[in-house]
Every structure is written in structure tokens, then in C-alpha cells.
């Protein structure tokens, strides 16, 4: 497979996963805002913090406002990571690799594009319309995954697509945990209150983890939730489960299951082992934020290593100009 094409497929899916995550974050936060007691301030800033685009938000909008945050994360063309731009980029990437994907997958990504394009063109959307939109985005992305799963051969392209999706997913889970965890622990007097419970539940729902967490742990506790979202090996959105899945992709792509045969495998293997032998109590004792911050940095390193190991065409271009 062409290096450029592999890179494009990887990003096609990263953007799709990002759009789906954003839609879920917003929908859950919306839901949460409905259940808050009247005197409680709505928490919209953490949403922007999660995405890592706080600086851009501050430069565009004077203060944190529900409607501005929603616009910024959903339709804002100035925000390279808004749902609008994520879907646009995913589709441009899909167009560039149209020959690698099936008609089913392409038509569904294309349909998502028309969904965001047409919705973005409408003025003054009601809450109901917006929530409907978030649901449509979530379902639309899931439909792409489903069609991908059902119609694409497990060839190189499949594994690069999968890599893009799970690296993005691990990153978003770590970010949502980081932002929410801090927020929740800032108010020790609320521990155990009904507000506290609603917010923990919302955190789990942001990553579609509520039902599976309940099944495994029953009681909502901060350490239990952190453990579930970082170290669980069975839940598909936990960070370790994502890394395990990425490892399998890299083994297939590299053809070696012992040790490593390229930088991507090496970086990922080290990070995965670190999580495999981690204990949630140690993580909490050492500082959750520091831990997650470090982890996000290492995920970025893995992504760069994938680029250098498989996609980069720089060395060839150099030999080309020398000849």
C-alpha cells in the first residue's frame, strides 16, 4: 500500500473518531446541565479543556458561554477540530483514498458531510435540534465503523484505519478523565452527594462506559472509574485496551511479534507494558494529572513513530533529487 494512502486512511479514521467523541461529550454535558440544581453553574469550560483547544477558544471568544462553546466545538470553521472540520477532513481523506474503501463506507462518510454541512447552514438551532444532531453524528459515525467492519478486508489499510481510530480514542479517554477528574476532586465537601454522583455518571457516559462499569464495579468511586478507564483490558475505550488493540495492528503490519522491528512497535510496546504493570493506587498517589499528561505525550510519540515507520516519504524524495 502507498505510504501516502496509509497515512490518509489513518487520519480519515482519526478525524471520524474525534467527531464522534466530541458529539458524545457535548450530548452528555447537555444532559448533565439539565439535571443540575438551579443555583449550580454549568460546566462548559472543561469541555474546551478536554479538546486541548482552550487557547484558540480564548482568542476567539471573550468568555465562556454555553452557546459559544457549543458553536466552537460543533460548527466553528475557525476551530480545526470542530465536528464540522473533523467530518470535512475525514471526507476529504476518504475522497483521496476512495479507491481503497468500499462504496458503502464512502457513501456513509459522504452522508455525514452533508449532514454537518446542511446543519451548519441553519441559523438559531433549538436545543432539541442540536441534541438530535449530536445523536445523528454519533450514529452516523458508528454506521461507518459498522460498514468498515462488514465490508473491508483485513488488509494493510484496515490495520492503519484501526490504528488511527484507537490512538485517537485512547487520547480522548485520557483527556476526558483528566479534565473531569480534576474538576470533581476540587470539591471534597461534595463527595458522595447526589451532584457528585451525577457528575461521575456523566464522566462515564461521555465515553459510553456507564453500563459496562456498573456491571463490573457496581459502586461509583473515583478510583474505580479511573482504574476502569485507564487499566481495564476488556472495555474497548479504556486506554490499555486501546493500546493492546494497537499492538495487534502493529504486529500484523510489521510481521514480528517478538520484540520490535520498527520505532512504532518499540514506543507502543514500552507504553503498553508501563500500563500493564501499573496499579491505580500508585497512579493516584503520584498524581493523576501528571500521569495522564505524561501518557498523552507518549501517545503523541507513538503517533509520530507510526508516521516515520510507515508513511514518511521524505527519505525517498531525497534520493530522488540526488539522482
Amino acid at each position, binding site marked *: *500500500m*502507498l*505510504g*501516502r*494512502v*496509509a497515512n490518509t486512511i489513518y487520519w480519515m479514521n482519526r478525524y471520524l473518531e474525534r467527531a464522534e467523541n466530541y458529539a458524545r461529550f457535548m450530548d452528555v454535558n447537555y444532559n448533565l446541565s439539565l439535571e443540575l440544581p438551579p443555583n449550580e453553574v454549568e460546566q462548559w469550560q472543561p469541555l474546551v479543556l478536554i479538546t486541548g483547544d482552550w487557547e484558540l477558544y480564548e482568542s476567539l471568544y471573550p468568555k465562556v458561554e454555553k452557546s459559544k462553546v457549543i458553536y466552537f466545538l460543533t460548527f466553528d*470553521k475557525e476551530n480545526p477540530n470542530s465536528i464540522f472540520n473533523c467530518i*470535512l477532513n475525514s471526507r*476529504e481523506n476518504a*475522497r*483521496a*483514498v*476512495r*479507491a*481503497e474503501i468500499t*462504496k458503502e463506507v*464512502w*457513501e456513509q462518510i*459522504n*452522508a455525514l458531510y*452533508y449532514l454537518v454541512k446542511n446543519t451548519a447552514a441553519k441559523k438559531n438551532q433549538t436545543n432539541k435540534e442540536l441534541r438530535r444532531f449530536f445523536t445523528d453524528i454519533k450514529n452516523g459515525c458508528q454506521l461507518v465503523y459498522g460498514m468498515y467492519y462488514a465490508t473491508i478486508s483485513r488488509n*494493510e489499510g484496515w490495520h*492503519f484505519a484501526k490504528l488511527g481510530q484507537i490512538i485517537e480514542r485512547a487520547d480522548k479517554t485520557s483527556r476526558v478523565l483528566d479534565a473531569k477528574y480534576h474538576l470533581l476532586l476540587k470539591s471534597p465537601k461534595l463527595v458522595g452527594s447526589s451532584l457528585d454522583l451525577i457528575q461521575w455518571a456523566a464522566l462515564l457516559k461521555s465515553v459510553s462506559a456507564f453500563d459496562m462499569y456498573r456491571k463490573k464495579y457496581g459502586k461509583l468511586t473515583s478510583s474505580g472509574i479511573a482504574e476502569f478507564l485507564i487499566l481495564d483490558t476488556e472495555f474497548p475505550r479504556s486506554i490499555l485496551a486501546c493500546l493492546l488493540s494497537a499492538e495487534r495492528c502493529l504486529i500484523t*503490519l510489521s510481521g514480528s511479534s517478538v520484540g520490535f522491528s520498527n520505532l512504532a512497535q518499540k514506543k507502543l510496546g514500552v507504553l503498553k507494558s508501563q500500563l500493564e504493570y501499573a496499579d491505580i493506587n500508585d497512579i493516584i498517589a503520584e498524581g493523576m494529572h501528571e500521569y495522564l499528561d505524561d501518557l498523552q505525550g507518549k501517545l503523541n510519540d507513538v503517533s509520530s513513530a507510526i508516521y516515520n515507520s*510507515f*508513511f514518511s*516519504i521524505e527519505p*525517498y*524524495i531525497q*534520493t*530522488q*533529487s540526488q*539522482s
Partner: protein
Amino acid sequence: MYDTSFTLMPKLDFSAYDTKGFYDEMFDENNVIRPNYKLFAERLQNFSQKKLNTLQHATDRAQLSLGMTFNVYSDNQGIERILHLDIIPRIISSNEWTELEKGLQQRIKALNLFIQDIYNDQKVIKDKIIPKEMIFSSASYLKELEGFKPPKDIWCHITGSDLIKGGDGQYYVLEDNLRCPSGVSYMLENREILKRTFPELFEQLDVKPVYNYTHTLRDTLESLVDIDKPTVVVMTPGIYNSAYFEHSYLAQQMGAELVEGRDLVVKNDMVYMITTNGLQRVDVIYRRVDDDFIDPEVFNKKSLLGTPGLFRAYLKGNVVLVNAPGTGVVDDKAVYAYIPRIIKYYLGEDMILPNVKTYICDEADDCKYVIENIHNLVVKQTDASGGYGMLIGPKSTKKEQQEFIAKIKAKPRNYIAQPMINLSRVPTIADNTIEGRHVDLRPYALYGDDIKIIPGALTRVALEKGSIVVNSSQGGGSKDTWVLNS
């Protein structure tokens, strides 16, 4: 909800349909339905105008969904347009098609011999069939190819000639398009869309299928090298090219890799693509990048679309380029005027499919005639296409005519003129009614072991009333083209 079209809606009414002054493909001069449209017309009786409008609307949506769009501006926020597909097909009888097929085969065979000759022995020049200045002054003539013979001596593997039918009911070849003819994906997808929107009409109408085009294309490309399972790729300028949909469509349908110039590298005069596992040798390139841009080492130095060294690899015979570079010399509108003589010269046969009468401004008598009769003629720039650089005499102002006369006098070699042909018309949906609109016809030919004409075509239609400009860049649409089996 139930479909009311059969009971309450008025039936289609063709009584006001106007065929005066033009050849209409569906009705003869007495407003009687022609035999090739007979069964279709009977079935169409079951549709109301409203139902047709609904179906028409559904095809627009289908095209958007398939991504059959082209960018109007070259950035990703630009406007994407579809090539409007009118749902009333153009229907061609079996006999008419057989003649057309023979004519195209004859023409392509002769033109291929001509190209081989002008880059090699130049007998056609020595025998004074065509003046040598005509060839060497063509912007598309590539002196780098002198003495070169492509694999299997085939230059124009893929052709999409533009044909028109005049008021006399006769087909004429307007342009040969031997470079990178586009539009074949529309021929294929239009058929798929029409089958979906009009299933009732298709049944038992005995329309020749077009679906095997991409199989034949792949076979043609593979037949050019003596390698078992050669690596065939489609080369595109990228996603911002207006024909990108077609490039990706053909690659996907053929199961070929879709590459850009930057995906290829030339080492030791061989072409490789850069893959996730290193370099992989490429054998055949169906390139949709123009001659001028394929190799910055030889042609346009600023081209970022090509691959340095590609042309060198080609001349060494290490890769096949399809179509061969240098074929554009036939597309020169001045060379076109000599084609009847070229066919006679190489094949000893009279031309089956006639040319449109062409005045060569570079020849003194013709030039004088053109200037005196410019108001009746269509004047064309010899190296332009897409409906640009032309003057339609009867529809132009005195000022425009004077401007063109000045241009012709300055550079007569760059202009030809042709009489105005009344393009034939096909009934077309227009604002809640059906009216005749002018059409042309672009059938596709593949030249491998033999010359195959695919039984179908892209029919381009000028959507604006009275217009004869069918180019997609200037408000043209398309129609599915049905070739009947009997």
C-alpha cells in the same frame, strides 16, 4: 400515502413538443415517434410530469451521495457541483450504432498509424499529404519522441471522440480527443442511476450493457506488457482536479492503485511506487496528467503533479504510459482538417464517419472566406478545448467578430472555422415540461489487441434553451445513452 400519478395526474403530453428546424432523436419531422424510441415512449405514457420531476430530483440526490461531484474552485471549501443528469435517455438503434462503430474503428486505426508515422518515418509529410509546418508548429508535437515506438505500436489506447448529428441526421466527428478523454465514469454511473430510478423502463428494452468497460480497460492496460500480473496504476493530479471522481472511480473499479506524482519515484530508469513496505515496481500507468506535467525534468519544470525521470523511464521501455505522450498533435484543430486525407492515405479507404467541413485560416483562400463569412461560422482556437476560445458567429456581436478577425490575422495558424451545425435534439426535462435540447455524443474506444467501441456513450446536453454549448464547465448536463440490441 399512495402514488397518485396514475389516477389523478395528467398524462405526459407531447402535443406541444416542437421539432421544427432541427433533427430530433425521438420524433421525426411529422412528430411521429422514431422506431428506436417506440417502446420507451409507450412505457413513458405511465408517468405523469410530476412523477418525472420527482425522479429527476432523486437522480440529483443520488449523484451527491455517490460523490459524483467536481470542484469549481480549487480549495476544499469550494463549491462542489454535479453534472446534471437528465433522466430521459438518448436511444440509438442497433443499425445506427454498427455504422458508428465501424467509422470510429477506422478512424482510430488510421490516426494511430499517423502518429507512429510522424514520430518516425514521416512518410505522410514526404508524400505531401499534410504540410510539415502543420505538424511541427503544433504545441502538442513532442520532438523528444522522434524515433520512438511505443509497446505494441499503440499510441491512443483510450479515445473519447466527440460526435454530433446534424439536421441531415448524419453523424459528424467534431473532435477526436486522443489525450486524456474524460467522462467515461459518467457513462457508467449514469446507467446505474437510471436503472435505479427507472427500473420499469429498463425491463425487456434490450439495451446493450456498458458495465464491462472497466474490465476491458484493465485487460487493455495489462495487454501492453508481457508480464504475468503486471502492476497497473491510475495517475491523478489529486483530489482538487475536476475529474478526480473519475480517476478514483476507475482505479477502484479496476482494482488498481490510485497514485499521484509524489507517490512515484524513478531509480535506474525504472518506476516505483513508495509503499509502506518500501518500493514497488510499476509497469503500466494510466495517467490522467497532461503531457506537459508528467515529468518536470523534461516538460513543465514547475510541475508538482509529475514524477522526475518518468519520461526517461518511458523512453527506455521500462514503463508504459497510457495514452502515449505526443498524441495531442491529432487533437490540434488544424490537423483535424486533414483527417479525411490521412484515412485515405493509410487505409486506402474512404472515411466512414465524416468530418465537419473545416476552413484552415493558415491557408490563404480559407482565411479570406472565414473573414468574409465570420457571422455564419464557428471559429475555434486550434489548441483550446472545453468550449473555450471560440466564437459562434451567428450568435456573436459585430464587436466580437472584429476581435476574432484581428486574432486570426495576427496568428492564422491558431484558428480554424466550421459552418454552424444544428446539433440534434433529445427531449429533456425543463421546468415542469419537456422540451428539445441540443446534444452531442462521446463514445469510448479501447485499443489493445483490437479496437473495441463500448456500446454506450456520454451524451452531453446543453440545458439552456437554444444553446449549443454542451461542455460541463459551461452549463452542460448529461444523458444516459442506450444502444439497442435490435
